[in-house]
């Protein structure tokens, strides 16, 4: 595979990169640059001057995974580049080529696939109340524990449609709608991307000697919790 040519086909690359003048405005206003080893100016400059080896190094790196996709860089770039779009193209190619498992940050895509990704196809929502608890999300605080313990009563008082087959807040997504989503994922590469994330992650977990099954297994904990567990 010619990595640079593949990258240049991505619509997000085409829209994201025009001519970077290396002014550093993107880095100055970037929330990720303030807290992690991430510098959008350097990434854009690297991609702009790219050699095949540079691109491979980026695809295997942690740095492309630190962007938070706030897209503040799109607003502020004086030359209409969008570093956040270039990051999207790099991330997509990193997964496509399986190189995402070569970085610790890239490996974590499995944990996101097994939460948000699986929620979409199971519930029709990216986030769903039954899957949120203060073990995984301690910042939810004691008010969330109270809501979780009393969710049917509280949601009824607030007029929600929780678990009901009707319109309204937190209603069940119909089987027909879930089937539409599943078919769209199959037709547009969503399912294939999920499969690639699972397949390459299984190989990496085996290489690292960490138990790999489904759902929230030991490899998921290793990625989701990081050094905290």
């Amino acid at each position, binding site marked *: 595979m010619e990595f640079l040519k593949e990258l240049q086909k991505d*619509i*997000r690359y085409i*829209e994201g990169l025009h001519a970077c003048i290396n002014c550093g405005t993107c880095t100055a206003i970037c*929330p*990720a640059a*303030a807290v*992690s080893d991430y510098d959008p100016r350097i990434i854009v400059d690297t991609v702009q001057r790219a050699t095949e080896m540079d691109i491979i190094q980026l695809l295997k790196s942690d740095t492309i*995974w*630190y962007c*938070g996709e*706030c*897209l503040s860089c*799109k*607003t502020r770039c004086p030359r209409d580049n969008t570093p956040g779009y270039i990051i999207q193209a790099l991330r*997509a190619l990193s*997964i496509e080529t399986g190189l995402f498992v070569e970085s610790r940050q890239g490996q*974590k*895509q499995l*944990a*996101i696939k097994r939460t*948000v*990704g699986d929620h*979409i196809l199971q519930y*029709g*929502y*990216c*986030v*769903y109340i039954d899957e*949120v608890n203060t073990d*995984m999300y301690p*910042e*939810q*605080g004691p*008010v969330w524990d109270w*809501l979780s313990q*009393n969710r049917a009563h*509280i949601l009824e*008082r*607030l*007029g929600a449609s*929780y678990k009901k087959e009707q*319109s*309204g807040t937190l*209603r069940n*997504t*119909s089987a027909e*709608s879930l089937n*539409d*989503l599943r078919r*769209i*994922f199959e*037709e*547009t*590469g969503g399912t294939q*991307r999920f499969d690639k994330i699972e397949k390459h992650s299984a190989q990496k977990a085996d290489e690292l000697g960490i138990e790999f099954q489904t759902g929230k297994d030991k490899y998921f904990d290793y990625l*989701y*919790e*990081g*050094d*905290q567990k």
Partner: protein
Amino acid sequence: MKTAKNTNWENYQKEIADDNYYFARSCIRQNFFPAAEDIFLKIIRKELGKNIFDDAQQTTCTGIAYHSGIIPFETTMTVVARQFALMTEAGFENFVCSCVTSFGIYSEVLETWKHFPEKEEEARQALMRATGKTFEIPKNLVHTSDLIYKFRKEIASRATFRLLDKHTGNPLKVVDHIGCHYAKIFPEKGVGGAEFPYVLAGLIDDWGGAQVDYPERRHCCGFGFRQYLLKSNRGYSLSNSKYKFDSMQPYHPDVIITNCPGCTFFLDRWQYVIAEMEGTTYGENGYGIPVLTYEELAGLLLGYNPWDIGLQLHQVTVEPLLDKLGIVYNPEEKYKGLQGLDLGKPEMPEVLRCC
């Protein structure tokens, strides 16, 4: 004070349809502020007499997954195409969504289709193969906060309360926080653009409050998509919210309002975490600064019972704000179910003062 800079927003106006909307819900708002969208619908229908359709067939737009890098743009475009197909089937032309990430997604898809018509054709064909559906492009695409902005004067004229301190008569100091994807991607699609957004500032002005202009007013709340979703990366999110709190605190805000469901959540919950981790609280007397969505604030000013609009589900206690506004509430009702059913009470945090 008006300056040449802060009146720039006047150059960024957008068309906001007057009636007949197809409503798309938000994953985050439904889960974390489960009464907010129903207050919005109630205000639009009952207070303003407008027609809005709440469809049982819609799904997520997939925006959180897309911005976290786990699904291709083609998948997102086709899911968006399905939402537009549902709008078309229901006989509507004006699309209004509750989520700012979704608003960015819908805007991005429509802009992409303008510049790359072959991508629209691909999405049409994929949608047809997958579901047999077809669609029309919405004539008008707006965020729910745009509707509250459009009708802010009508809401003010019906309101029981204004953003005034009952004890002093002074305007309450209100921080407005705009979700990044409301206007940073496409400034021309937001009321007031990206640098001087007016969509919430306009509510503050017309509802009697005072805007707080602080250094990090435009900084991201720190969602970061994949960064928040992973516990091991969540410091990104906390750090960026703290950056904002530290910047706004010297101005002593009475309340924060946001138009993005995620921002409301992070600015509420990270205050709890900072209090418990560091002992720092940002409100008065050990409380936090209450954080409300725009429709919750509108509901309060219109006289809705705070416990019927879900304010008991905020981790930062809202009572200091209710007291300033002069809203009379029954503390005993706060944690009750229907017909006064006793549901116990949440545990109190160790540092952050709560009621």
